[in-house]
């Protein structure tokens, strides 16, 4: 099962490697990882997408909580939540493909943010699976480069992850 785990941790040197090191040392899997400081600069918010049985996810949560730098851990996927990921994708845009790319970007509500005679850079936001669909929907030979941020998530409604 895929899980989105949100972590609030001390914004200190080495804190990220404690989290990443825990995953590799215990053989847990990281699909994506994003991290940045919050509105309180002493805190970082980290989102990890991982997968595993209920037992493994329980262990991941407990082991994360054991790290001294970790303040709070929440499995976002346990309740209603929103997830978003940003992708920048550079595609070849020449001849008839140029019009087609513009159309596909519109359909997926992407934005073209850089234009040259032969290429576009398209910015696309959505769930991870939406970004996957976009990649599948266009001709693979036209993709020059992709860069994805990894998933960020937040709980719906009153659910808040705060100190």
């Amino acid at each position: 099962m895929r899980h989105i785990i949100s972590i609030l941790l001390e914004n200190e040197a080495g804190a990220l490697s404690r989290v990443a090191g825990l995953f590799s040392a215990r053989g847990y899997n990281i699909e994506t990882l994003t991290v940045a400081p919050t509105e309180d600069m002493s805190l970082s918010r980290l989102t990890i997408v991982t997968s595993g049985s209920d037992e493994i996810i329980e262990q991941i949560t407990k082991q994360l909580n054991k790290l001294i730098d970790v303040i709070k851990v929440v499995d976002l996927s346990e309740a209603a939540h929103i997830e978003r990921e940003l992708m920048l994708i550079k595609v070849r845009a020449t001849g008839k493909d140029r019009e087609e790319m513009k159309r596909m970007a519109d359909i997926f509500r992407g934005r073209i943010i850089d234009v040259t005679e032969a290429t576009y850079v398209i910015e696309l936001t959505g769930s991870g699976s939406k970004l996957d669909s976009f990649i599948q929907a266009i001709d693979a030979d036209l993709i020059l480069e992709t860069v994805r941020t990894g998933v960020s998530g937040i709980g719906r409604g009153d659910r808040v992850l705060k100190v």
Partner: protein
Amino acid sequence: MTMMTGAEIVIRCLQEEKVDYVFGYPGGSVLHIYDELFKQDKVKHILVRHEQAAVHAADAFSRSTQRVGVAMVTSGPGATNAVTGIATAYMDSIPLVVISGQVPTTYIGQDAFQECDTVGITRPCVKHNFLVKDVRDLAATIKKAFYIASTGRPGPVVVDVPKDITAAKCKFEYPAEVKLRSYNPVIKGHSGQIKKAIQLLLGAKRPMIYTGGGVILSNASEQLTRLTRLLGFPITNTLMGLGAYPGTDRLFLGMPGMHGTVEANMAMQNCDVLLAIGTRFDDRVIGNPENFATVPRKIIHVDIDPSSISKRVRVDVPIVGNVQDVLDEMIRLLEVEQDKKDISDWWSEIEGWRARQCMNYAMKDAIMPQYVIEQLWEITGGDAIITSDVGQHQMWAAQYYKFDKPRRWLNSGGLGTMGVGLPYAIGAAFANPDRQVACVTGDGSIQMCIQELSTAKQFGLPIKIINLNNRYLGMVRQWQEMFYSRRYSQTYMDSIPDFVKLAEAYGHVGIRVDKPEDVVPALKKAFIDHKDDLVFLDIRTAREANVFPMVAAGKGLSEMVLADENL
């Protein structure tokens, strides 16, 4: 407030923490600190011969007293040599503060002389670590280190101090207490869960108590003994938990696990309610978890670390809390509770297993190692601090020395580090000057930290070394005999030193023992005639003696091989 250098601050902090011994080894990056050590006499420094031994000795100091052990090493190789000691302490949850020197902050990352990423290298084997980048943070960081090491599930904490920080000056103020928003260990157990546990225990027809090192770490032996006697239940202590319940008591079934007794393993396997306290269902204790889970028993698990609960075995009643507090609460409830079930049928079943007398061994012409341990128990009145290394001798010491009290048995249970025995004896001797300290070791293990005979000489420590010398790496050889058709690959030691001469070269007393009838006289010589000397007893034991019972790796607890089936 006076201005102090970082080096002065380090020493002042140790004084504030009432540290009386630091085990260490000097070097370039810690020169300022060693200079400050020199100028005072409250904190005594014990110079070892290898940094690994410094950490082991600090670890044993803690194991035998419950206080935080302190080690000090220099940067680079000093720190990397300390890693084995730190990992050993981490696996057994021993509170340590290790202060390591580091190259100056401006050199970090430049591949400077004796530079290594100490914080990075030790990260996976510490409870927490710090790199101090500003002298103004130094005192608070050391305070945090002691606090983190000794609270919750204890563990080692490394404080890496760059050399320029030890020269920089600031005002010294030692914080009275620390609070960390991200670290709040749970102490009291959930009262509803404790009540549920009591109901399960009182309704049990085939109950069993299984406890580990957590009981000793939490100083809860008294509570455990009281609880067990109130209930009248059978009890087993793991390798790390020996001495938490009196080993000579009738309710005690011996150690469980790979080399556990028939009665302990069969009771673990066949009980209907298992009360697990401060223990972690390790693979050496429960064997194959799938086999263990085939029995529909109810499990109550008390532990301060939530991640230990339901890690290897599903638990029915988890209780997160400090063992001592939880046991106090359980005793309080039991004292007012009504009658429990009659378990005499269960006891007669257990007595049947006990009657198998699985610890019996046959005396031979050669010295049997089990016999040596029994005689060691006799001559020390069962009350010495026994340290061991890792291997067959470790198991025999655990099986045949009946520990009645906690903090008498010091060994590397989790990491299984060969070489700890002698430095453990050194640490224990400093912490317990009035108690007999014996190191049970083997011809393989003792050579891994043999240089510490020099440390023992320097400080006049009257340690007794019981070297069960079988001229083999015995435990590996035993596995090769049982599972590799006797192909003794690299387990024969064909050039071991003359240990008697070696002991003498270090200025100690060495005695060689070859015959069974010489064992007791030699022990008397060591413990009585040479009471105040370090004595190295090199005891030539039966070469191919094996440790039984044995549960092969990956098997279930009831699939034991016994000695007489194998003779």
